[in-house]
């Protein structure tokens, strides 16, 4: 069969409006964080907390600039992640064999790593902003050096993301035959059967709910205990990390097929579509917020002994624990609804 899809050789998807939007956002973020980096270098070199020289006053002003820049950068990154998912969904209409975002993401080697890097980016920028907010609340800017070293370390990640994104978009070609989510996530026989009661599904769900319960009780314990016990916080911080990955796996191979009411359809992206009322958005937002707050708790506990931060860190710790519990409850309710509705009421509601 003669292929008919070869219309325009070269980076077709880069010139597509979605590809261009991603590039524009990346350029903006590079510009913002790059400018912030300039202040970072100056601050790391010349910062003298006690001094009242002109340079020091200038640097204190520049802190405002860089923090605003990074805050905007984070906002842009969030939009970029959203656009990326939507773009992948649109690209699926143009790539042979692809039917949803999964297909477009796997159309070349860079799609999936790019998604991971973008997600990681959201967390890391968010942590930076938390550090910054803490720092601003103390008289003597105790976290300045830490904050700017962190920013320096973030830059390579940003460069990596931009590179991956460019490679991904230039490498996408409508001629490449890729797989649809039914093939990718349904390939394993064991996973395909969980609606009928496959063992793997139940074990996984038990692990999922078990970990959620542990995180819940550890949160409640931390809130009620008189003394802060760092050990519990660190362990549950790690627990949040594991839970994030586990939750993504559970959504992909168990929960999603109950939302679609199709035993062989496992896909974490199709739940974002309008056909399923976009239920994926609240699910993913609550999951990311819960895990982010879990991470923030660890930061708050780590910094509780820094001069001038004792009180703020304590407040932040209590707030982030409460927030993470609320978000976790929301996530569990949203993601379990279809699953349990099926077993209890025996159908789709």
């Amino acid at each position: 069969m003669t292929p008919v899809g070869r219309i325009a050789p070269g980076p077709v998807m880069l010139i597509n409006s979605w590809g261009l939007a991603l590039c524009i956002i990346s350029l903006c973020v590079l510009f913002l964080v790059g400018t912030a980096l300039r202040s970072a270098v100056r601050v790391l070199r010349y910062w003298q907390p006690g001094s009242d020289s002109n340079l020091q006053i200038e640097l204190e002003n520049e802190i405002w600039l860089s923090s605003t820049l990074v805050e905007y950068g984070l906002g842009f990154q969030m939009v970029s992640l959203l656009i990326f998912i939507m773009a992948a969904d649109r690209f699926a209409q143009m790539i042979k064999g692809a039917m949803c975002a999964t297909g477009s993401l796997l159309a070349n080697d860079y799609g999936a790593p790019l998604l991971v890097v973008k997600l990681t980016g959201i967390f890391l920028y968010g942590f930076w902003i938390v550090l910054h907010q803490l720092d601003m609340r103390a008289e003597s800017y105790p976290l300045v050096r830490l904050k700017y070293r962190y920013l320096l370390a973030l830059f390579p990640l940003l460069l990596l993301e931009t590179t991956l994104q460019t490679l991904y978009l230039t490498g996408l070609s409508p001629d490449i035959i890729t797989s649809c989510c039914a093939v990718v996530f349904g390939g394993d026989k064991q996973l395909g059967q969980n609606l009928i009661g496959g063992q793997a599904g139940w074990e996984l769900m038990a692990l999922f709910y078990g970990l959620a319960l542990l995180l819940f009780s550890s949160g409640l314990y931390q809130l009620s205990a008189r003394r802060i016990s760092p050990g519990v916080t660190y362990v549950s911080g790690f627990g949040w990390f594991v839970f994030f990955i586990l939750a993504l796996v559970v959504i992909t191979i168990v929960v999603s097929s109950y939302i679609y009411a199709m035993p062989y359809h496992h896909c974490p992206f199709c739940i974002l579509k309008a056909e399923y009322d976009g239920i994926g958005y609240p699910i993913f937002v609550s999951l990311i917020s819960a895990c982010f707050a879990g991470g923030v708790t660890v930061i708050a506990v780590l910094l509780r002994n820094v001069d001038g931060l004792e009180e703020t860190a304590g407040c932040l710790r209590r707030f982030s624990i409460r927030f993470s519990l609320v978000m976790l409850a929301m996530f569990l309710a949203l993601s379990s609804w279809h699953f349990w509705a099926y077993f209890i009421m025996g159908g789709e509601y």
Partner: protein
Amino acid sequence: MKINPLQRQLNLLDYALSSLWRRRMKNGAILAIFAFVIFLLGSFQLLSQTLQSSAEELLAFAPDITIQSLVAGRQTPIAANKIRELADMYGITASSPRIWGYYFDHDNGANYTVLGLTEEEIGAMTGVILESGRLPGAPGEVAVSPAVRQSLDLAGRSAFSLFRPDLSQASFKVSGLFSRETDIVTGDIILMSLADARHLFAMPEDMVTDIGVKVANPVEIDNVARKIAGRFPETRVLTRAQIRKTYQVVFGWRSGFGSVCLLAALASFVILASDKASGLSREEKREIGILKFLGFQTTDILALRFWESVVVAGLAFLIGLSLAYVHVAFFDGGLFKPVLVGWSVLRPDLSLAPSLNGADLLLIFSWSVLPYLAATIIPAWRSAVIRADTVV
């Protein structure tokens, strides 16, 4: 006195609005230009999106599989008797010859699409609505769209003639008129019987332009297409899905290409916005100085500038997008249609119903508002760190 953070932001927003109003000439100019840029980007995106969804309807005439003959990589007539060789292939419910060509009208420079189908196929046609009359049955009868009728200057008459290649004339009689609702598909079509089309184009007996194949099970279309390609290696076998992807890619590429051109407009606007925001007058510096004396912190002034940007960008976004919608819905996207609809000269009355969805809004937003915000941060910071004692 401690006020809650929300009230604080609302107060800042209030102040931002009044400060925007005080400099309404400067801000109005920015707003107008920004709205214009968003209008350009938005119309382009909306138009290509609308056309893209109409592409689906364009396939109303396309059979599941189309077989065309190729010689030296170009399409040539194919023998209609190939159909007999397809008869024994499993999965095919029907295959029929068709003549699909273009007729160039010397009088007015229009290009009509001539579609000649067998009687059975015309009889089984769905997805096409007639405004009046009936589909062609007897020899010499055709169905046309109102646009074609107008272009042929028929007025009240129904008989007309077209030139054959040897300049002799072929006469036709309009038996039916397509409804305007299907203009995207039927806008430039003259539908007639296979024999009439063959006569018009003076094609040899038994030759057609392509063979359409109907497949019973949609899942099997690719398999059947592969089998056909194996049996007739000299042909090109197209499936409906392939044609659809091609449309999507072409539209995506065309709209992207147009967007690249609009990038220039965007870039110059961003430079303008950043320039306007950084050139502070003495008045403005004094104002910031006074605010600082009154107890405003650097963050407050940054927040103030942020609200100003948000108000300008939000207003420009609303105005630009509404204009774009009007442009596409009521003026058929006249500014950009030539770029996007390029394969036929005659498509005069194509009415488009743009559909706005969240994804497109977000796309236009990230194209326009985000670069604007990024461009105004540094000027905002410059103004926020002005020291009170140096300006007052």
